[in-house]
C-alpha cells in the first residue's frame, strides 16, 4: 500500500518538491473517494481543502440561473483542484462534481497555511507551483474567451 508521502511524490504537481516538504505536507493529507455524480464541494462553501486528483474526472461548475449548472472546465488525474483555501475569504468560487468515480488526496487548507507560515520556503514553493498551474489555466481561459469557433469574416469565407 502506498504511503501518502509517496502518493504526493508521484503526482505531477509535487514533482519539484524536496522530500522534506513532502514529509511536512503529508501531515495535512488524507485520501478520499467520490462516486460519480457526487459533489466534492459547492460554490460559496468554506474552502477547506486542496485536492490532488489521483484518478477520475472532476467538473468545475457554476450556477448560471435559468441555464442551470454549467461546466466551465474538467480536471483529470494528474491535476490539482482548488485554490480558494489559499486566499481570503477562503470560500469556493465554483462547485466541483465528480464526473467519474474519483480518488483524491486532500490536504487540509488551515494545516497547509500554518505550515507555510512557519516555513516560508515551503510556502514559496507551494505558491510557485500553484502560480504555474494558474498561469496555464488563465492562458487557456483567455483563449476560450476569444470564442475562436465563431465566424471570422477574414478567413471563413471558404466555410
Amino acid at each position, binding site marked *: 500500500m502506498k504511503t501518502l508521502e509517496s502518493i504526493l511524490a508521484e503526482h505531477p504537481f509535487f514533482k519539484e518538491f524536496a522530500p522534506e516538504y513532502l514529509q511536512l505536507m503529508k501531515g495535512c493529507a488524507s485520501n478520499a473517494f467520490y462516486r460519480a455524480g457526487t459533489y466534492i464541494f459547492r460554490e460559496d462553501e468554506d474552502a477547506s481543502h486542496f485536492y490532488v486528483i489521483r484518478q477520475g474526472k472532476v467538473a468545475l461548475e457554476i450556477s448560471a440561473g435559468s441555464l442551470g449548472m*454549467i461546466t*466551465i472546465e*474538467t480536471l483529470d488525474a494528474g491535476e490539482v483542484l482548488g485554490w480558494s483555501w489559499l486566499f481570503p475569504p477562503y470560500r469556493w468560487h465554483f462547485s466541483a462534481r465528480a464526473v*467519474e468515480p474519483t480518488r483524491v488526496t486532500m490536504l487540509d487548507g488551515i494545516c497547509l497555511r500554518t505550515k507555510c507560515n512557519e516555513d516560508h520556503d515551503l510556502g514559496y514553493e507551494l505558491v510557485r507551483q500553484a502560480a504555474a498551474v494558474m498561469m496555464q489555466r488563465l492562458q487557456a481561459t483567455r*483563449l476560450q474567451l476569444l470564442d475562436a469557433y465563431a465566424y471570422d469574416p*477574414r478567413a471563413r469565407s*471558404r*466555410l
Partner: protein
Amino acid sequence: MIVPAVNPMVPQLYRTGRIRRETLDTCTVEFEPEDGSKVPPFASGQFNMLYVFGVGEIPVSMSGDPTRREKLIHTIRMVGPVSKALCELKRGDSVGVRGPFGNGWPVELAAGKDVVLVGGGLGLAPLRPAIYQVLAGREKYGKIVLLCSAHTPSYLLYQRELEAWRARFDLEVGVIVGHATSAWRGNVGYVTKLVSKAAFDPANTVAMVCGPEVLMRSTAAELEKQGVAAEHIFLSMERNMKCGIGFCGHCQYGPYFICKDGPVFQYSHLRTLLVKGEI
C-alpha cells in the same frame, strides 16, 4: 497535388444529393456529376469552388473519402448568402463545381510515424478525408491520435462517426468543448490540454491541424512544446479565395497564395505570419 483536368475556370455541373444537418448552423451536402461520370480524383485537404447559380461562388474543402468517387461531399457552415444557399439546396438542384484546388495533407509523409490530427470546430471537416485515408492504411502508421474541439457539445461535427472512431482500439480519440451542461461527461476546456495529455512520440510524429487560426496557432505551439518539429506540424489556412488558381490575388497571405501554395502549410513557414494581425 491533384489538379483539375478541365479548364479550371469553367464550373462543371453537379446535381445535389442528400443533405444532412450536422449542427445548428452546419450541413453536409452530397453532389454527383450531372453527366454521370465519376468525381475527379482529389487529395485529402484540397478544396472546390462551389457555385450556387444566381447567388455566388465560395471555396469549400472536401470532407468525404477520397477513395469513393461516386459523389462529392462538402460540409458547409452557414455564414453568408452562398453557404446558406448551399445548405438550403433541394435534392436534384444543380450547382457549379470547379476544382479540386490547392495542395493536401501530408498523408504519405506521415507513413511510418505517429499521426496527430487536431480539428477545432468546423476544422474537423477538411481533416476527415485524411482521417479516412490513414485509417484505410492503418498498418502504415504508428499511433493515430484524433483530437476534436467545439464550442459546446451540440456543435461537434460527425457525432456518430466520432463514436465509431472512439470505439476503435487502434485510434485514440479526444474530445473537448468550451463549456457544457452537467449532462456532458466529457472534457471541458481548451484543446491544448488534450494535446499535452495525448500519447504519441513527438520525435516521430506528423501533426495535421485545422480550425480557427488562433486555435491552430496555440495548438501548433503546444505540439512544438511537446517536441514535435515545426516542419512536421501542418496547418490548413483560409482566406477569401476567388479564382482558386493563384491569378486574382484575393487570398494572398504574406509571400503565399493560400489557394495555390496551400491551403496546407508547414508551421515553420507560418510561424512569423500567424502573429501579424494585419495580414
